[in-house]
């Protein structure tokens, strides 16, 4: 009898433990909905966010960007210093092993990550990566097993930033040699997760790397492609996915009410841009008048939910460590339609023929607001309606992306939607005279601004650089090259039972010195 009871007890206990074990471990699966998955070759990521996220889980970088201050924090490099303006030295963590049990390293045959691997990766990135700015790096050398020296051609204070060295993922040369083209679907690195399955356009499945120097709480991460934003939110609400990456801002208020949280970091600058060489916008007064005619505070709130944006007075966004300015630029803003009409009159535009529209020399003030979809259309719809009421024949012109880009770069577009370059190189890319026909679609060439931006590029000291940028920015806004509208925060929606989630900024960190995501239902 007693023995029988003991056996029963043991069986039940074992089953119970097994069930609990299964329950607990099965719970630590994180499912992330993304828009697409294409190619996860760690150096050929082309700025596609979800591919970058997957690759960043598989590989380690030298640093990652802190969740609160966006400044570089140790990852593969435990410490670093700028020896002089042109030289950086990185000290690597010891004992980090590449993943094993795959096509590159058999089980148990993995080797340690060394300075040579870092040098190899940097060189490969310079060759292959089309979306990284690595031209400033002149050379990378391994000083010893755990020390790397990087020399730059000019002072590079942003060396450790998104799209620069911070985005270089460290891989072993064997991966490239053995995998060849398969590197696009089954890369390996030294990161906390190993890629088990990758089907472009469908999904990616990663499992925890038990040998990782970080100890992830999660057992499995799945990336699921759900291209339609509304469908991804339905999946989130149904519990089929736990996180929606870059979800639609419109659903925000409703989801917040239901208990979901928004984990967005960074985002984009949105504003109106002028091509300052195209009439009628070549006249400062016309640009200023248009700016005065718009009540930006009302407009931007009608485009995205208020919680997910912020009024912009300049181009540099709040999450860039330097150059962000709002109080200093507020005086340049204004909403006064009477003053606007006055300025138009000064520029020669009046309603001389009584048809309700402003005209000059017999020609009506008429132009197209060119955009290509999404929030831009909403913004321009509002602006066009307001300007029409004022007496300007402004019409929205939605174009296909290709046509829009072509028109823009060729200088055929007078008034357009500025939607990008919200990173640390924004001011330079958008307004420096040398980049006309490339990224300076404003065709703006102001020698004072150019000089300020050039000097800023050479300044390593954050505070000093910030001052230079603010000065340049103020000139740009004063010249009314742009009408800043708002900063839009990335809306990544997270289910309430997912804890410690930090959305991506450059890389996706599900486990790091600052966080370790886990599921708690």
């Amino acid at each position, binding site marked *: 009898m007693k023995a029988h009871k003991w056996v029963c007890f043991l069986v039940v206990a074992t089953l119970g433990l097994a069930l609990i074990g299964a329950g607990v471990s099965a719970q630590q699966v994180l499912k992330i909905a993304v828009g697409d998955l294409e190619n996860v070759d760690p150096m050929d990521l082309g700025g596609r966010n979800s591919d970058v996220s997957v690759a960043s889980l598989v590989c380690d970088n030298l640093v990652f960007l802190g969740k609160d201050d966006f400044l570089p924090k140790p990852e593969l490099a435990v410490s670093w210093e700028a020896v002089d303006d042109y030289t950086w030295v990185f000290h690597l963590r010891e004992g980090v092993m590449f993943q094993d049990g795959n096509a590159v390293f058999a089980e148990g045959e993995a080797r340690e990550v060394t300075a040579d691997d870092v040098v190899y990766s940097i060189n490969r990135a310079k060759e292959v990566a089309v979306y990284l700015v690595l031209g400033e790096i002149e050379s990378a050398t391994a000083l010893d097993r755990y020390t790397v020296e990087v020399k730059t051609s000019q002072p590079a204070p942003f060396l450790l930033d998104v799209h620069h060295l911070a985005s270089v993922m460290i891989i072993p040369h064997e991966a490239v040699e053995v995998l060849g083209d398969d590197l696009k679907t089954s890369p390996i690195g030294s990161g906390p997760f190993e890629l088990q399955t990758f089907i472009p356009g469908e999904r990616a499945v990663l499992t925890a790397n038990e040998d990782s120097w970080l100890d992830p709480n999660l057992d499995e991460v799945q990336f699921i492609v759900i291209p339609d*934003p*509304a469908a991804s*939110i339905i999946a989130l609400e149904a519990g089929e996915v736990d996180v929606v990456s870059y979800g*639609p801002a*419109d*659903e925000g208020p*409703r989801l917040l009410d239901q208990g979901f949280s928004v984990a967005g970091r960074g985002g984009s600058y949105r504003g109106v841009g002028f091509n300052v060489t195209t009439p009628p916008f070549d006249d400062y007064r016309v640009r200023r008048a248009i700016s005065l005619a718009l009540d930006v505070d*009302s*407009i931007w*709130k*009608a485009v995205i939910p208020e919680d997910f944006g912020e009024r912009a007075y300049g181009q540099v966004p709040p999450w860039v460590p330097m150059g962000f300015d709002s109080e200093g630029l507020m005086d340049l803003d204004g909403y006064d339609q009477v003053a606007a009409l006055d300025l138009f009159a000064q520029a020669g535009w009046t309603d001389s023929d009584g048809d309700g529209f402003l005209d000059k020399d017999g020609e009506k003030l008429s132009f197209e607001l060119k*955009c*290509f*979809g999404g929030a831009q*259309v*909403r913004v*321009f*719809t*509002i602006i*066009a*309606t307001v300007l*029409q009421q004022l007496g300007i024949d402004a*019409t*929205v*012109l*939605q*174009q*296909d*992306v*290709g*046509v829009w880009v072509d028109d823009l770069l060729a200088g055929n577009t007078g008034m357009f939607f500025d939607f990008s370059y919200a990173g640390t190189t924004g001011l330079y890319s958008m307004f420096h005279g040398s980049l006309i026909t490339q990224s300076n679609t404003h065709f703006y060439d102001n020698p004072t601004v150019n000089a300020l931006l050039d000097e800023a590029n050479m300044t390593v000291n954050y505070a000093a650089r910030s001052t230079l940028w603010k000065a340049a920015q103020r000139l740009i806004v004063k010249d009314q090259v742009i009408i800043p509208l708002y900063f839009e925060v990335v809306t990544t929606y997270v289910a309430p039972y997912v804890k410690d989630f930090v959305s991506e900024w450059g890389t996706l960190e599900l486990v790091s010195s600052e966080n370790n995501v886990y599921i708690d239902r």
Partner: protein
Amino acid sequence: MTKRCGRSLFGRRSRGGGSSEPGRRISLRRRAIRAFVRNRMAVLGTTMLLAFVVCAIFADYIAPHDPLEMDLMKPFQGPGSPGHLLGTDNFGRDILSRLIFGSRISLTVGLVVVSIAAVLGSTLGLLSGYYGGAIDILVMRLVEIFAAFPFLILAVAVMAVLGPSIYNVMLVLGLVNWPIYARLVRSQVLTLRETPFVEAAKATGCSNRRIMFLHILPNCTSSLTVTMAMSIAGAILSTAALGFLGLGVQPPTPEWGMMLNEGKDFLRRAPHMITYPGVAIMLIVLSLNFIGDGLRDALDPHIRS
């Protein structure tokens, strides 16, 4: 001879009797009209269509608000709110007014596109099926090229070169839709070509043209009217699809397809933005179908209620 040939063999009534009397021919038309009028659904359909046409023509007087007038303070008002029978959209614009003004564009687009496609397609289909041979091969290859050609590339190319506008949308949609009619008519022609009636018509010396248009084409009417009615909905929805990609009707122009697009982002928050344009499209298609059925029934004397 000519009189006999001129009488359409539509319906293929074999009870000939009194074929060539002019009096008989006039009363046929009157009979058709009477049959149509007696068909309740046909009348209903015509009334609905007329209502839409009236809306389109007199929009300025019927609509309670300016369709472009925004009220950024009052977005997403539900249906039945004061002053807004069908509610407002995300910019605070009155949906009812936008629907009424939208009927102008949507009706025009739908009717023009389908007319172009139907006329062009049916003609080519007739020629192709009737003459066969080289003409058939050529036309069918053209059908294949146009139908197999990715419509979007054509749309993008046309819009890029000629500029995005509602006229170019109609052009593109017309070019894309004609193969449907060509194939439909051709298949009917192939069947009818061998019937004794056509042979008889040929024997009596009817010209090919007469045979095709007076005898064969009317027999395709039912399939044609059904397809045309459906195509109109299709054309309006295609305009919406093009609008998704930024080609075609420009905001803030009220157009039912564009209203669907704009409402999509707010499906959960403000479903009325999509529902009402959808219902409008449905009613137009319904009315056209009723009219089509009524026409067919009226002209085919076998079917007497």
